[in-house]
């Protein structure tokens, strides 16, 4: 556990962008106003699968107030096999471009077909409705098992295995021998529905294609450089021709990594010669952006008398939506990742279906597979008469444990998280009464590294400006500033962070993969160390000494000393300003384990579930700003509970989403949840100077299974479908 003491790290300063965000001054994407700006609307397919026979835009073009109309025909052709490397995982350019505006076929209801720019959004919407599209409807297929069945409608002619875009297979040890050693074997199959990240701010993008060929895009994105690179690829222009200014972002959770509107706004602007703003409606967000995959997962686990898992097998089929990329890889890699299991077979299938192309959602792929593993283990613990946490402790992965996909763990906090759960007040409290149940589960997420950049400039008043490129979705300006302050011996408030556009800072990957505090934090740390070295050199010059010491913000040599601020005031005379940059592309990523304890009460008449008490536990490595670490844990937990109990894309047989509003796609409200207790575990990541692992994602992995296990204790029923809503609970 963490023992180092810090001055700034671990404290809870007010976030730097706080005043702007509570007074309404912070500018989110849709808040942007530019001179001569016009507004767009996107026409979307009403069919889940259809051939486009004809698009006639003439009426829309002639509509008063319309400046431009675009369809896929306005975009450059995508070479069939061109792959775009975003440094985050790669995408086929044809999929990216095909999803932005359909050509040839529409592959889901909500698929964008054309877009209009007009004097205002109302006129644009009216004009879009005048675009005539002739469709030849085709049969659609909506779930992975159906899409894998012989005779299923085929989405893409160029996939080698029908609708299966990718196979994953991991094997370790001897599966049959492992199951032969087991005394208890349980096998279950569970389905999860398609769910959405549900960020409150809809996607938006404003673009201006200047007459000199430069394209400026303002948008809400988790990664300005990824948005730049993807937009440039779709528009077939060099990346240097595109500048992305990241606006404040109203939530993302993985869903604001992909581009949807940016290239369309740019193309409209090129035609119109004016800046064009596109903002999605809530229904557009549900039907036109990436939700997270629905899935079917089968898990079989064998355990011996000593409570040791001897073998485990998993079969996973994930719905990619319209284009390949269902995150079944991480689903397969995480399905047994919390445990040390000698004999394993995992098979995964990435399956295209006629639903929106899926996107990442907090630990993408992992909740679906953990649901199966963690409910099967619960059942095994019951059969063995073992405490469910004890069964997990006997099998917990630790340093050196080999995962089925090959690599061995460095130091991880699985045992520490389980011990913290076991020792928690919640786990040791009695349940309040009948129809109540308590469930537990744990989950793992890798977290990510990827490139990040930062520049620190020392001001003459002893403060420091921080220039960075990680969009701030939940307090990262502050968690980064705190790392600079810790190195420089300053207060968090002495650092002034600014997030700048892609022309103004070195390449920085997405705010995603739980990586910002780790990776951009490392860039900030490294830049701060260079600042210290340069400042030492200045002090050495002033004092005419060779060696200067620096600790707790004080430079000293031979009994002389300067505070950071005192020395900062003298930089001009000692060689000029100090401004230092660092760019990292680190190894040393530390995975995070999270656990959940949840108490529920089920009304046996109505099947309604009330959540009574929740405790979220997570290994942060080191919590830089504990309040925002707790916030990540609470937010991921709330999303996981919504996923478990309520949320789902309700599609009719024609593939149309029937609940594409917040009224019908019901996310948890304040009334649906209790306080969410948190226990931050700190097993430092040896790969980061302060031990940071990253906390954005693992917390959403346990809730599905923890809720399922709690519902079992409350009702005696093992449910095999998420959401576990009243209908599922009552078996209707």
């Amino acid at each position, binding site marked *: 556990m963490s023992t180092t003491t810090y001055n700034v790290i671990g404290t809870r300063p007010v976030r730097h962008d706080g005043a702007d965000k*509570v007074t*309404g001054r912070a500018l989110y994407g849709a808040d942007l106003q530019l001179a001569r700006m016009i507004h767009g609307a996107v026409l979307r397919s009403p069919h889940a699968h259809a051939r486009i026979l004809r698009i006639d835009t003439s009426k829309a073009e002639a509509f*008063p107030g319309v400046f431009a109309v675009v369809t896929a025909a306005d975009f450059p052709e995508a070479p069939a096999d061109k792959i775009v490397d975003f440094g985050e995982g790669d995408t086929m350019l044809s999929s990216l471009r095909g999803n932005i505006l359909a050509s040839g076929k529409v592959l889901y209801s909500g698929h964008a077909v054309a877009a209009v720019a007009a004097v205002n959004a109302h006129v644009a919407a009216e004009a879009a409705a005048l675009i005539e599209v002739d469709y030849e409807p085709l049969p659609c297929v909506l779930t992975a098992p159906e899409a894998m069945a012989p005779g299923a409608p085929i989405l893409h002619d160029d996939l080698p295995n029908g609708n299966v875009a990718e196979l994953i297979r991991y094997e370790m040890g001897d599966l049959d021998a492992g199951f032969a050693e087991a005394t208890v074997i349980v096998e279950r199959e569970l389905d999860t529905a398609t769910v959405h990240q549900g960020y409150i701010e809809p996607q938006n993008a404003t673009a201006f294609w200047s007459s000199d060929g430069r394209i400026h895009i303002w948008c809400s994105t988790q990664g300005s450089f990824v948005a730049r690179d993807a937009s440039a690829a779709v528009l077939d222009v060099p990346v240097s021709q595109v500048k992305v200014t990241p606006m404040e972002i109203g939530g993302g959770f993985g869903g604001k990594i992909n581009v949807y509107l940016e290239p369309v706004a740019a193309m409209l602007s090129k035609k119109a010669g004016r800046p064009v703003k596109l903002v999605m409606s809530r229904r557009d967000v549900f039907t036109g952006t990436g939700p997270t995959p629905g899935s079917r997962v089968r898990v079989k686990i064998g355990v011996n008398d000593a409570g040791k898992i001897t073998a485990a097998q998993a079969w996973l089929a994930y719905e990619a939506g319209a284009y390949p990329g269902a995150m079944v890889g991480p689903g397969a890699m995480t399905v047994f990742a919390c445990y040390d299991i000698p004999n394993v077979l995992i098979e995964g299938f990435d399956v295209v279906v006629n639903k929106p192309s899926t996107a990442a959602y907090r630990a993408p792929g992992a909740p679906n597979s953990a649901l199966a593993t963690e409910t099967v283990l619960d059942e095994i613990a019951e059969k063995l008469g073992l405490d469910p946490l004890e069964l997990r402790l006997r099998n917990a992965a630790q340093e050196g444990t080999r995962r089925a996909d090959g690599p061995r763990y460095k130091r991880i906090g699985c045992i520490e998280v389980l011990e913290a759960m076991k020792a928690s007040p919640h786990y040791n409290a009695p349940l309040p009464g009948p129809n109540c149940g308590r469930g537990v589960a744990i989950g793992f997420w890798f977290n990510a590294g990827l490139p990040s950049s930062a520049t620190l400039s020392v001001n003459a008043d002893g403060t420091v400006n921080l220039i960075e490129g990680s969009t701030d979705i939940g307090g990262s300006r502050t968690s980064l500033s705190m790392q600079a302050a810790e190195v420089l011996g300053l207060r968090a408030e002495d650092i002034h962070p600014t997030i700048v556009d892609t022309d103004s800072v070195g390449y920085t990957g997405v705010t995603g993969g739980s990586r910002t505090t780790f990776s951009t934090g490392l860039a900030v740390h490294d830049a701060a160390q260079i600042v210290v070295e340069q400042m030492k050199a200045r002090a050495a010059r002033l004092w005419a000494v060779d060696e200067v010491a620096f600790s707790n913000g004080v430079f000293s040599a031979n009994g002389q000393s300067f505070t950071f601020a005192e020395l900062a005031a003298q930089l001009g005379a000692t060689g000029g300003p100090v401004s230092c940059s660092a760019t990292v592309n680190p190894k040393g990523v530390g995975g995070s384990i999270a656990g959940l304890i949840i108490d529920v009460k089920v009304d046996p008449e109505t099947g309604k579930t009330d959540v009574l008490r929740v405790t979220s536990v997570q290994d942060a490595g080191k919590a830089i700003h504990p*309040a925002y670490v707790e916030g*990540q844990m*609470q937010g991921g937990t709330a999303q996981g509970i919504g996923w478990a109990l309520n949320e789902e894309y309700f599609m009719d047989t024609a593939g149309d989403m029937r609940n594409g509003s917040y009224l019908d796609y019901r996310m948890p409200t304040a009334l649906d949840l209790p306080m969410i207790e948190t226990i931050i575990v700190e097993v430092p990541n040896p790969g980061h100077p302060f031990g940071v692992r990253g906390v954005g994602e693992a917390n959403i992995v346990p809730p599905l299974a923890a809720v399922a296990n709690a519902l079992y204790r409350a009702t005696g029923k093992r449910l095999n479908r998420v959401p576990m809503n009243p209908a599922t609970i009552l078996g209707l």
Partner: protein
Amino acid sequence: MSVKVQVQTTINNEPVEFLCEPRQSLLECLRDIVGLTGTKEGCGDGNCGSCTVKLGDRIVTSCLVLGVEAAGESITTVEGLAHGSTLHPLQKAFLDHAALQCGICTPGFLIAADALLQKHPHPTEEQTRFWLSNNLCRCTGYDKIVRAVQAAAIEINGAAQ
């Protein structure tokens, strides 16, 4: 394009006049015409609460109110909560309790919570959750928002008797 209507109203204690189309929502008028973009749009159909403003003495989702309905009314938006450069106690409590992550829901929560504290100076957790249940937050799980509102209640109205 339809004929525009002149609307005279009071926003954040200042007289404001604007021209809008009859079909434009109050939310659109505030954001796109008056330039007060602190009020946010999350859904446009009354179900997220991001666009919550005070209209007269009640709170409304401004996406469901027409701009022309604001004529002669008095409106408070998030931009009107602070006194000059001094934050409203609710704003301060939201910062102290880390009650925002992305912050897109925050303006709506602040306006709704302000109305709550005027009606219930010392709301229970249950009352707070009930009152705020028309405001969606996807980031926080509500825990820190509820705590911030209750802390602000004590700050404004003193400890409950």
